[in-house]
């Protein structure tokens, strides 16, 4: 997989306190926008079960998996309690000219 920056979505495509799914080269990611317009990215699947986090619920810096309520801090990837026990991988994100760019090389932080 390329380690270059990849254009992922428009910054306005994500509502505040929300998450969207981004697929790239057979992998799936979750892109987040906080209430104060900071952007983050993690792997798209929950580490507990193969469920897309993009269907989940964002509260502050926490994403909650839509299937089993596993919770992660999406700014660090930290799992916040059962059934989420393994941390999420996070990825560098930047916003330029209203577009979100994602660097999907080595994870910024992993379990």
């Amino acid at each position, binding site marked *: 997989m390329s380690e270059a920056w990849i254009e992922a979505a428009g910054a306005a495509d994500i*509502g505040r*306190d*929300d998450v969207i799914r981004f697929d790239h080269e057979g992998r799936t990611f979750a892109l987040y926008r906080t209430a104060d317009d900071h952007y983050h990215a993690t792997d798209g699947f929950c580490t*507990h*079960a*193969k469920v897309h986090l993009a269907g*989940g*619920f964002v*509260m502050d810096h926490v994403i*909650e998996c*839509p*299937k*089993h*309520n596993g*919770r992660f801090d999406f700014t660090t990837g930290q799992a*916040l*309690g*059962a*059934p989420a*026990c393994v941390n999420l991988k996070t990825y560098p994100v930047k916003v330029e000219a209203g577009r979100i760019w994602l660097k999907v090389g080595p994870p910024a932080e992993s379990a």
Partner: protein
Amino acid sequence: MPAFFRSAGAKMPSAITPRDYSLTGPNSQLAGERGLADAQWYACAISRARLKELMQRRDGPAVRDTLLWFGLMILTGTLGYLTWGTGWTILPFAAYGVLYGSSSDSRWHESLHRTAFKTVWMNDALYEIASFMVLRESVPWRWSHTRHHTDTIIIGRDPEIAVPRPPDLVGLVLSFFSLKSGPREFRRMFLHARGRLTPAEATYIPVSEQPKVYRNARIYLAIYLGFIGWAVALRSFLPLMYVGFPSFYGAWLLLIFGLTQHAGLAEDVLDHRLNCRTVYLNPVFRYLYWEMNYHVEHHMFPLVPYHALGRLHQELKADMPKPYNGLWEAYREIVPTLLRQVKDPTYHVKRELPATARPLSPVAQAAT
């Protein structure tokens, strides 16, 4: 839903071949081969914006409801103390028992999902307390219920199938007072306290969580031993009327509510519209049951807190089977179905979707 009695090992009439519901038997692998394990489930269409509104967490409703719940237990418990030794004591303890042994089920459930409160520690505190009250060890049951949501009523995968086919009617009657599940839970508590799990538990409890299982089992047993010692010292059952016994004598309403969730409905389908019931209840029952009567909606969107399930139901009902209008209507279906399943375990209720609903998936169609 929680299993009032677990599926594996139920005694069956000799003429009927029992289904193997165990998580370590051939049906577990078969479910995987049929695409029923860890599968994609049907979800009704709802806008992301509306779903976000409904998923919003609040502390207020659950703080109010929990204070009222504990307040009612203190009130009825005090009345029980004041009337102890007279025939009148039956009334306050009957109420205390239902609050302790039955309503703890829905509090356990909602706080397990961490949707009761917005504040995480409040969910976790209520979860530990309610787990003890409803006689379910908090760590094993968290993982059991997680699997139940992954593989709802999938044979060989779901550890919480309350009424395996053919139904064990004697076991069901015993379950009104936890006389089947209660002794089993204590056996497991002793097993866990010795640092061991059952083979089925080992399939869904991660290794990293297992020390917590053993620690909590020892804590539970220490509490029970403390109350037993207190009762012996007083030469009175009174302490055990508050802790221990109510998990049995107060469990009957848990069963009445809980059986409506899935009993008699389809197995091995990937559509909660076919294997869950939504039942309209009066406000008192909805308080005692914390809105778990909206069970199709809960399974489809488990991030929605109990206080928003009624609104979620309004959003989705055009795509749902007709809800049951009260417990009476639900049991008019459940009782004859279970009686028929004793002789014909293949029989189940086939839920009908309205004309406005989206069609069933191929897997669901095949199963019906």
